[in-house]
């Protein structure tokens, strides 16, 4: 089984996405033998009211809950986020969050964000953070959104030891405490592999050595990205089949209680 913890539905403001409806994404997943995917709203990245995107995703996945696992995009500085969180969790059955601190212009260390993380943790929700949405060099002339610095993630995981985080679309973990062995950090975060190198520097292999295969998860970034590069990484990864199985699906199943 393959579970993708890094997938999206809806439109992105700066580029046309293909395969961005539930039906189209499922067809793409079928063509790549991907069984399940965690999805959130791509539109909510730039909607002011992110909840509108959550509603769209909830409607899209309603009849596909066996394969599409919805996550909510919540901006803790936007009015009514507590109501949105409650609705997303209790009515839409969303099992986790996606946070965009740079796109939504807030600090992970802010009081509001702390309240959101605590509230989501209280509900048993997983919190995923895309380190980037797209390569900054191809950004629109309208904006300049930096990647989330890994130092800020370090502080976040330290401050919230009971929360569970999945870090998406990142690289350079091995140059940060996050990817080092015996780093003194709580083991409350997992790292998704879509941008990690699997040959040459082989950051993927290093993370498995340093943190254990239990802390690495499969993800593609589709439909922003082709799913195939992530699948190729799994193919060339020099590790045991049981460890690959953890990365392919078991870790996600454990974290998402599937």
């Amino acid at each position, binding site marked *: 089984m393959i579970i993708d913890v890094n997938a999206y539905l809806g439109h992105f403001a700066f580029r046309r996405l293909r395969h961005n409806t539930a039906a189209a994404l499922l067809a793409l997943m079928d*063509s790549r033998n991907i069984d399940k995917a965690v999805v959130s709203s791509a539109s909510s990245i730039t909607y002011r009211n992110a909840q509108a995107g959550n509603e769209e995703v909830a409607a899209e996945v309603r009849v596909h809950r066996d394969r599409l696992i919805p996550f909510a995009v919540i901006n803790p500085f936007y009015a009514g986020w507590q109501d949105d969180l409650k609705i997303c969790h209790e009515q839409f059955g969303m099992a986790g969050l996606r946070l965009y601190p740079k796109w939504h212009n807030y600090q992970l260390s802010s009081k509001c964000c702390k309240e959101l993380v605590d509230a989501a943790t209280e509900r048993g929700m997983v919190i995923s953070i895309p380190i980037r949405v797209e390569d*900054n*060099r191809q950004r629109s002339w309208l904006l300049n959104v930096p990647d989330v610095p890994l130092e800020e993630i370090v502080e976040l995981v330290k401050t919230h030891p009971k929360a569970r985080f999945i870090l998406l679309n990142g690289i350079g973990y091995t140059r940060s405490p996050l990817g080092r062995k015996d780093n003194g950090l709580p083991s409350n975060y997992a790292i998704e592999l879509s941008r990690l190198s*699997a040959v040459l520097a082989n950051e993927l292999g290093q993370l498995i050595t340093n943190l254990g295969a239990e802390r690495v998860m499969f993800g593609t970034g589709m439909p*922003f990205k*082709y799913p195939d*590069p992530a699948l*190729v990484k799994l193919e*060339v990864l020099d590790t045991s089949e049981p460890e690959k199985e953890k990365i392919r699906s078991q870790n996600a199943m454990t974290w998402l209680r599937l």
Partner: protein
Amino acid sequence: MTIAQTTQSSPEHRPHVSRRSLLKGSAAAVVASALISARTAAGEQSIPGASSDPFGKGKVIDCHAHLNHRSRSTWEADDRKLIEAADKLGIDQLCCSILTPHRPATAEGFRQCNQWTADGMRRFPGRVLGYCYVNPGYGREALEEIHRCIEDRGFIGIKLYNEYTCTEPVVFPIVELAIELGVPILHHASHSHYFVEDQPRMSDGGHLAELAHRYPEAMLICAHISGGGDWEWTIKALRHAPNVLLDTSGSVTDDGSVDMAAAVVGVDRLVFGCDSSMTAGVGKIRGANLSTQDKEKILGENMMKLLRRRKL
């Protein structure tokens, strides 16, 4: 050529990603991953240096690769890792240059890089093909270095970086020599919607299109359309420049990028590359919604066609 065409490979060099899976797509790869790889069956020699045609049919050629500068303490091991990665991914040949760590390169600097590239071609015979890297600002010295590398050392092309925008007159003698020798120029390029301060003379697809119109006989390769700039802009800028090929390399794996390039400029103008982003490079081609025949062209045939136009 068929997708089942085989090449010989020792067990330790058995690719994890077979040619068949590279061409068919990931679903096929998952199903076929436990099956015999196309390269393991006895057949055609995979080392092109041992073949009468060094750019023989059926090869997967990475048109944009780099060996390591020797100021890097691990250069030798890192060069070996590049070949090992190519082995794992089913890449037969890598068109390599070495760049100076700091630019603009001095004449001494680029000559040293090319000497090391020539050494790399000897260390990995048939696997590494060399690009001659020069800084056009060195005029006669740059031209002499190109003559030496192409004519005496068997390099396959010229690599230009960001010392000058490719439309500046100082670049023209390099292009004219490339035409005379019948070799391609791989030109660093990117287009961002802001001024890139550390690369003030960066070329983009528009500059390359302009250069191509000035020199319609030139064989130009626009580097890494997925190298971080706005790839949609780059592809559109090159639509009407038939003598510019687009290199698919770069770390960006945006869905639809290869497909759009194929739709706008045609598959005959796309050449596969990685630029050290190895799984990204292979995965994008695998993921593109193109026929096997079209992928064959991108993976090697188009580059082979270019390399066969050499006049020496």
